[in-house]
């Protein structure tokens, strides 16, 4: 145990520094590259027909856009139908409110132990940490989350939290924390984890889960998973608390079908997950199992800020498949922890500024070459590069700009940089000035400076001896 260096929580304000560290970690680079290559191949193999795939994405986009276009109404219907089904619905504007709600439920049942299915919203809430502060143990039951929890790390991916680790690293971790003999055999490792967790399901007072889709028309909470831990977490303990973001609502079960096809294929290249749980209320009088109480906590946490802007609203289309991460050349190189946010990768760069404010994610919109790989694979067609560009625009606004769009806007405002761009604009709107610049840049080309950040990766740039303006003029007039 003493051999392991505890991972310090990385700050979202230090993306550049975090990235530099991650880039130097060859183990991480290798693990991430091979994992992402495999995920990209699996996705494509599960959706080989471009025509079908593009139609399905188009449909996914329509379903989500329609749901968001009537979000307030759907949320009210969801609440009414869940209530009718016997589910208690709670609303939380902030993570503090959400945690307080969960704590109150736990205390009402004198709960000591909580078992958790995978939930990114609970990560947003830092629920484990919060509950531990109140003497309640919260244990992750998703194998990846369990590994991360044992290693005191943060998830590196929203679907596969421990994807940055290989079998050797997990073998050492289990040897050190669970006291088993070292092995790299994945089956043995998984079986070991499952044995430990199995006991915990029966000892837990409360099961916590996330939600993939909350269906308004029927009051159904839909949850996909591959390990059975989701069903155990939501079915075995006497109380089930589901936590989710307000954007997860869809209109009806028909809407779920294309979204489900897209979600499992985009995430893992699976036609369907091993388990698809559809939770429609607590145990009824004639039923033998299931929880006696079911709660749903609907969390806002900045989502309504994105909702308020027609363009930024598309951020909320997300169904959390992680395909944008798997295909992102930046994410593949720096891993998920470097972002310092709950949601990493391309989707993280566009959702985190709403959850945390641009002041806490100042470099996230810029940490992209806008290559567009993310937007190309997004199952619900979120124009991620366009939204990144929009966030850059918000980020460089004057801090006192009266047009308020989001928390922390203008966090990268720089009078100097603005002046540089104004100079650039002057140069490029004045043909004479531009040609003069071209004349001198080419005549004095050996004096071209190799400026700092460019020089880090490149030899000095050298303009040509004559500009195209001159060459074209000479050539065309010579005719």
């Amino acid at each position: 145990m003493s051999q392991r260096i505890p991972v310090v929580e990385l700050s979202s304000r230090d993306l550049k520094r975090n990235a530099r560290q991650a880039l130097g970690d060859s183990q991480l680079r290798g693990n991430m590259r091979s994992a992402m290559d495999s995920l990209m191949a699996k996705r494509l193999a599960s959706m080989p027909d471009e025509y079908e795939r593009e139609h399905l994405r188009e449909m996914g986009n329509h379903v989500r856009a329609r749901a968001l276009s009537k979000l307030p109404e759907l949320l009210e219907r969801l609440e009414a139908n869940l209530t009718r089904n016997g589910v208690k619905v709670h609303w939380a504007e902030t993570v503090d409110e959400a945690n307080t709600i969960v704590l109150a439920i736990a205390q009402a049942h004198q709960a000591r132990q909580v078992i958790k299915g995978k939930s990114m919203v609970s990560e947003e809430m830092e629920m484990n940490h919060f509950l531990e502060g109140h003497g309640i143990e919260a244990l992750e039951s998703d194998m990846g989350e369990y590994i991360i929890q044992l290693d005191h790390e943060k998830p590196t991916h929203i679907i596969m939290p421990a994807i940055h680790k290989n079998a050797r690293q997990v073998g050492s971790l289990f040897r050190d924390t669970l006291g088993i003999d070292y092995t790299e055999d994945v089956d043995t490792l998984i079986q070991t984890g499952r044995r430990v967790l199995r006991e915990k399901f029966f000892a837990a007072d409360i099961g916590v889960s996330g939600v993939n889709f909350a269906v308004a028309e029927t009051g159904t909470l839909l949850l996909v998973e591959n390990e059975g831990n989701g069903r155990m977490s939501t079915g075995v303990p006497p109380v089930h608390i589901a936590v989710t973001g307000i954007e997860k609502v869809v209109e009806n079960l028909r809407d779920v079908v294309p979204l489900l096809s897209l979600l499992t294929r985009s995430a893992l290249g699976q036609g369907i997950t091993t388990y698809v749980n559809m939770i429609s209320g607590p145990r009824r009088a004639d039923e033998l199992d299931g929880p006696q109480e079911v709660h749903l906590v609907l969390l806002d946490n900045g989502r309504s800020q994105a909702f308020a802007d027609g363009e930024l609203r598309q951020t909320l289309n997300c169904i959390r498949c992680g395909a944008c991460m798997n295909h992102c050349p930046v994410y593949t190189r720096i891993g998920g922890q470097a972002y310092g946010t709950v949601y990493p990768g391309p989707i993280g760069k566009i959702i985190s500024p709403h959850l945390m404010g641009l002041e806490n994610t100042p470099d996230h919109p810029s940490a992209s070459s806008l290559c567009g790989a993310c937007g190309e694979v997004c199952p619900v067609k979120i124009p991620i590069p366009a939204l990144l560009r929009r966030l850059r625009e918000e980020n460089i606004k004057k801090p006192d700009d009266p047009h308020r769009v989001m928390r922390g806007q203008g966090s990268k405002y720089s009078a100097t940089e603005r002046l540089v761009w104004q100079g650039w604009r002057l140069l490029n709107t004045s043909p004479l000035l531009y040609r003069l610049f071209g004349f001198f840049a080419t005549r004095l080309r050996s004096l071209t400076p190799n400026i700092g950040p460019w020089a880090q990766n490149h030899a000095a740039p050298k303009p040509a001896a004559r500009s195209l303006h001159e060459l074209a003029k000479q050539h065309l007039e010579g005719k």
Partner: protein
Amino acid sequence: MSDLFYDAAPNATRVAPPLPTPRQYPAKPQQVYLFGTCVVDLFFPEAGLDAIRLLEREGLRVHFPQEQTCCGQPAYTSGYTEEARKVARAQLALFANDWPVVVPSGSCAGMLRHHYPELFKDEPETLAQVKALAERTFELAEFLLHVCQVELQDQGEPVQVALHTSCSARREMNTHLHGRALLAQLQRVERVEHDHESECCGFGGTFSVRMPDISGAMVRDKTRALQDSGAAQVISADCGCLMNINGSLELQDSPLRGQHLASFLWQRTGGRP
């Protein structure tokens, strides 16, 4: 229940709207504009000149408005939308005739074709002009292939080349397909694949100077893949990528270099040795 799962039927896509139709190409015109782009202008002017020569060989009269500067993309992608709009506006008036505008860069062509309409969406009068411009904007490889329908006669020695396509050129203009089709016409040119060919080279305009660590890791991976491909030469239709890739190769003292597609095509087909 069967009705409930209607959408799950194998032909579930029947309820989805049709996909956008592929671009329709006009007949070959007599005259065209060349929008040279600022990077070509200062760093790869030969590529711009070779583009003019290739177009002239197809019997077109080429116009190069001397007032042209930059498409505005660097400011646009950096979030300086107003500065980008002013620079874009300055280009609009230069292409008054309804001749096609040919651009020897996929990302700049994509800027004119896809992002100008976004930039001027709140100005109805300008928007009509911008949309008409977008409609007649073509990336060079696309124009040679689909509008001129070139038939290239390879006159060079056998050579292996790797093709790198800029991400916006690939995703906004399909330049990777057009570039491959043109290279395939050259009988003694073998195009070799390189590892993670469709991945970004790390340029991304100002990204390369804002995030030099990440960008540097990307260009090092890209140049390694290109060197490992066995290609004697790298071909690209985007000079932003070429600046990035060549600058990195030069720093690594590698003999490998990237060349613009227009120059490569012109040289291979007898333009000059």
